[in-house]
């Protein structure tokens, strides 16, 4: 029997909803079968806690007296965007501090704000008749800000390559430290717990879907950048590129660094671990089938990161079950694997979201618009510039 979003929301409000985390649901399906699981369970919660470079925050500072039209802005010496209205800015996670380099970046500014710390704001202006002031240096905190919300153009990747290194030198990448001569393999999704692997056809996730983000209740705002969806995207059972992605939004004032964390990768730069959880309604048996997917059925490919090209060589296809076992076979040798995305945190998020729903604190929101059906991943064409 099919269920609707509204019916499930009524159950949430009445405290009668049945919610399981994705891992619990898969176990139930193995025990009782898809049909029974679909009947018993209303919502499945998913989670991910991964470094997501395409993240950042919009901020409004309020006006000083006399007012300034900020056109160059620094937060704790990290440059923020000055091309918006007078006291609006956007701070990106990967922007580096001009004084501390790789150690501190936009991601750290975001976490420090969330932690309630004081942040040094410095801004300059050319001065106008209506905004005469030319510079300001002061301290701000999250409480002072009129608005501070994350708007992350690309989060929650559906899938991602696993990385290795065939060269003779150590590589420092966004896929972590890759040891020479296939010394290790790193991978970066929460596999069967990952939101978009549990709703591969995007039946329940679209624009307007309410999500858990960094501890707050936020929304899917748009398709993510580099959103790829078309008939050829699955090749040999592997979702190519990062598959579908989401642009997400959430209020920083409701966030906690338990679920969002600044990070800095050696010789690469800064990024933000973003904790995202998406509740997926078990609308019918078809939905339950998608939600039953296990790590042994989800594949990615091992890619050689030592080749400095857009299309790096693929060494083999590998399941998340094998990656998680601790070693995989590569060229006849056992190579140790290491995760980069925190499965422990992903589980914590799925669990917290489940509890919120059981307490009636988190309702489903049906998408107000579906995400696009057909999107390709176009390269940057370089044209001659005269």
């Amino acid at each position, binding site marked *: 029997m099919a269920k609707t979003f509204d019916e499930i929301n009524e159950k949430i409000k009445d405290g009668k909803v049945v919610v399981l985390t994705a891992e619990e649901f898969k176990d139930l399906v193995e025990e009782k079968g898809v049909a029974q699981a679909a009947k018993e369970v209303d919502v499945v919660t998913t989670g991910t806690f991964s*470094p997501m470079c395409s993240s950042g925050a919009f901020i409004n500072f309020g006006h000083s007296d006399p007012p300034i039209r900020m056109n160059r802005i620094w937060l704790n010496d990290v440059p923020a965007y000055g091309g918006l209205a007078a006291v609006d800015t956007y701070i990106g996670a990967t922007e580096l501090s001009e004084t501390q380099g790789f150690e501190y970046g936009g991601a750290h500014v975001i976490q420090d704000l969330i932690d309630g710390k004081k942040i040094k704001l410095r801004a300059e202006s050319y001065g106008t008749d209506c905004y005469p002031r030319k510079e300001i240096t002061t301290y701000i905190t999250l409480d002072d800000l009129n608005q501070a919300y994350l708007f992350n153009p690309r989060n929650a990747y559906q899938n991602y390559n696993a990385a290795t290194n065939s060269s003779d030198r150590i590589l420092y990448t966004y896929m*972590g430290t890759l040891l020479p001569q296939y010394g290790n393999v790193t991978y970066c999704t929460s596999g069967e717990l990952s939101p978009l692997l549990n709703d591969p056809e995007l039946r329940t996730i679209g624009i307007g879907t309410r999500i858990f983000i960094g501890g707050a209740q936020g929304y899917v705002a748009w398709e993510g950048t580099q959103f790829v969806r078309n008939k050829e995207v699955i090749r040999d059972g592997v979702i190519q590129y990062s598959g579908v992605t989401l642009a997400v939004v959430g209020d920083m004032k409701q966030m906690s660094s338990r679920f969002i964390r600044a990070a800095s990768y050696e010789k690469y730069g800064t990024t933000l*671990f973003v904790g995202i959880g998406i509740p997926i309604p078990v609308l019918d048996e078809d939905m339950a089938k998608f939600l039953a997917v296990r790590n042994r059925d989800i594949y990615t490919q091992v890619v050689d990161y030592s080749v400095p090209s857009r299309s790096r060589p693929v060494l083999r296809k590998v399941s998340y079950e094998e990656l998680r076992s601790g070693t995989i076979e590569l060229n006849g040798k056992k190579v140790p694997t290491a*995760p980069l*995305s925190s*499965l422990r945190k992903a589980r914590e998020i799925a669990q917290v979201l489940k509890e919120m729903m059981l307490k009636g604190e988190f309702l489903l929101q049906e998408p107000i618009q579906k995400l696009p059906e057909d999107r390709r991943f176009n390269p940057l064409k370089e044209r001659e510039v005269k």
Partner: protein
Amino acid sequence: MQLQKIKLFMYFPPEKTDKPITYRLVKDYDLMFNILQAQIQPNKKGRLMAELEGTAENIEKGLQYLKEQGVQYRIFNKNIIWHEEKCVHCGACTAVCPSRALSMDRNEWKLTFDHSKCLICELCVKACPLNAMDVNIFL
């Protein structure tokens, strides 16, 4: 005469733990011996983290004596600290740890740190994106 100070881990084979090796170091080689941490039980492999102070020559001789007694040792002036409160258990550090001192508990997906296996190579300090691994350098 200039005195020198070193810190070291000593690993005693089971049959040696009861013997007065440390006493001889003090007595025969005129070394100051300061135990920082000890895990010694009768008939089990023992581990001692200690500080030795003496002349360079005597330290050298003392270490030679340890070797002759079948006591393995490792000299160091630092150790690695895991700030668990900063750790998100991502696992990035396990990618580089050569001795498997750092590993993931595959049920809980929690990082575990076995200090006794640590080679103090510091690779994890650089690899951790959360700054949760630190080198503690002794004076």
